[in-house]
């Protein structure tokens, strides 16, 4: 353990893992709330084109990925507004277009091959550079400023969009901001978790947390704790077992989900009983009501 911390690349990887563990669930909670858990996956596909573009233009793939995936996320948001009837097909075009564009561009790049993409697809702790850490920390702070600072507004928009519009909130601007924030989170996370597994880190800690919570703020807080636990332990495991960190992080997250679900089941039962007992006024309860 202490030996691991002596390596600079591991220090960098753990800092990156910590930031991602906080940022990914903090944004993911809104996507889950809006029942768009899969959106992060779509952004991941689109980001691949951005990564390849970075190789092609010989600049930092992280920044080109931020630009391309932000544009893609805003495109998905616009499709959600205007193309209600065949929105799913439009999204499919966007996702697979992003994936195919990435593979095409990387092979056009000088010295580029699909092998370059693998570390971005599945994550790699050894490739997190000094410059990457600075970028990851900076972008994560921006992501947290939005997802924590605007939590009431984003909660209202994701909970009941029509109501939020009638309260006069700038719903379109908030939705676009959330889309861009999600895109930034995906690109920040891709070095460690990998583009194909980023979405899991945005969604699974939230899914695990809400097994044990009743409110939005507590779900947000607990999912961030879960996110940090699995990214740090997954990165460590990846070092010890010499496997890509994305895989170990996601499998640990799924394991945590199962454990929390098993532990929370009796808790949920006793809560339902208490709720039924405390209903008052003879209002009929749907859940846990004794059947006469």
């Amino acid at each position, binding site marked *: 353990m202490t030996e691991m911390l002596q390596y600079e690349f591991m220090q960098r990887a753990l800092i990156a893992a910590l930031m991602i563990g906080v940022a990914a669930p903090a944004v993911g*909670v809104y996507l*889950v*709330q*809006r*029942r768009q*858990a899969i959106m992060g996956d779509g952004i991941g596909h689109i980001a691949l084109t951005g990564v390849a573009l970075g190789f092609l233009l010989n600049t930092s793939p992280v920044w080109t990925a931020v630009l391309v995936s932000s544009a893609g996320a805003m495109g998905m948001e616009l499709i959600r507004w205007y193309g209600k009837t065949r929105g799913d097909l439009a999204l499919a075009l966007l996702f697979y277009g992003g994936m195919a564009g990435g593979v095409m561009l990387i092979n056009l790049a000088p010295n580029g091959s699909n092998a370059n993409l693998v570390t971005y697809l599945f994550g790699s702790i050894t490739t997190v550079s000094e410059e990457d850490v600075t970028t990851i920390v900076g972008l994560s702070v921006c992501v947290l400023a939005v997802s924590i600072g*605007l939590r*009431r*507004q984003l*909660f*209202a928009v*994701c*909970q*009941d969009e*029509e*109501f*939020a*519009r*009638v*309260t*006069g*909130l700038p719903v379109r601007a908030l939705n676009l901001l959330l889309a861009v924030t999600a895109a930034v989170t995906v690109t920040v996370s891709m070095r460690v978790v990998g583009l194909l597994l980023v979405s899991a880190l945005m969604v699974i800690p*939230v899914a695990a947390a*809400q097994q044990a*919570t*009743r*409110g*939005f*703020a507590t*779900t947000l807080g607990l999912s961030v704790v879960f996110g940090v636990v699995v990214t740090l332990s997954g990165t460590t495991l990846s070092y010890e077992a010499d496997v890509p960190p994305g895989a170990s992080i996601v499998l640990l997250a799924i394991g945590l989900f199962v454990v929390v679900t098993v532990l929370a089941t009796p808790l949920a039962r006793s*809560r*339902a009983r208490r*709720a039924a007992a*405390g*209903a*008052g*006024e*003879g*209002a*009929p*309860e*749907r*859940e846990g009501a004794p059947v006469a």
Partner: protein
Amino acid sequence: MEPGEHVEGERAMRTASEPVISLRGVTASLGARTVLRGIDLTVAPGEVVALLGANGSGKSTTVRAAVGQVPVSGGELALFGTPLARFRGWRRVGYVPQRSTAAGGVPATVREVVSSGRLARTRLRPLGRADKAAVRHALDVVGMADRAGDSVNALSGGQHQRVLIARALAGEPELLIMDEPLTGVDLASQRVLAEALRGQKDGGTSVLLVLHELGPLAPLIDRAVVLRDGRVERVDEPERLHDPSCHHPRDTTDGAEPATMIETGLLS
């Protein structure tokens, strides 16, 4: 300055004369189907107006058009004397949508949902002491204060509806617009709702609400506008509404059936 003072001033300045809602010849379509074929409707300050009519008559579309959620294809629509396109005073409006629209994939407590109604006033700034007090008061009015920390998913249909009404009340609106607040609501919650509405009416709030039948709310309604095929079929004035059996909401709700039975006559 307290957020309330400014609004009180506005309220005093714009008294009586100006309708809070005014629709003139409003038409609207949902997809290819024309739903509103020229609706005329006004709600005066302090007035409680019910929209009645069969399914598909355009009741919900009318109120959703009034809050800017259905694009209007013709006619004039104004809130507080300002054409809807230029209207920015959403903090004066409390909206209770149909219950089906409000469901998130993540648990939320009753207090969190009701607090989001306060955003009409706080916008991007954090909740202050007055905001928290308004949320608490709204929860009290609908009798849900003891459930503030519970998940909304654990509530019955009627309790959930009370939460949505509290959310609208948390913004301390001058105009309440409610889309079918009684649908799927148990009698106990209907009684709570009627009392909450009476409190709002006594405080001078104007109300436009969509109902299937007047039920326990009958004594509170100043005017009932009956829609049919996207047009106003008729307007029922108070004397026709105030059936003697509806004057005592306590009797009718505790007795459990008469009010609703009598009022269904309005719909046929």
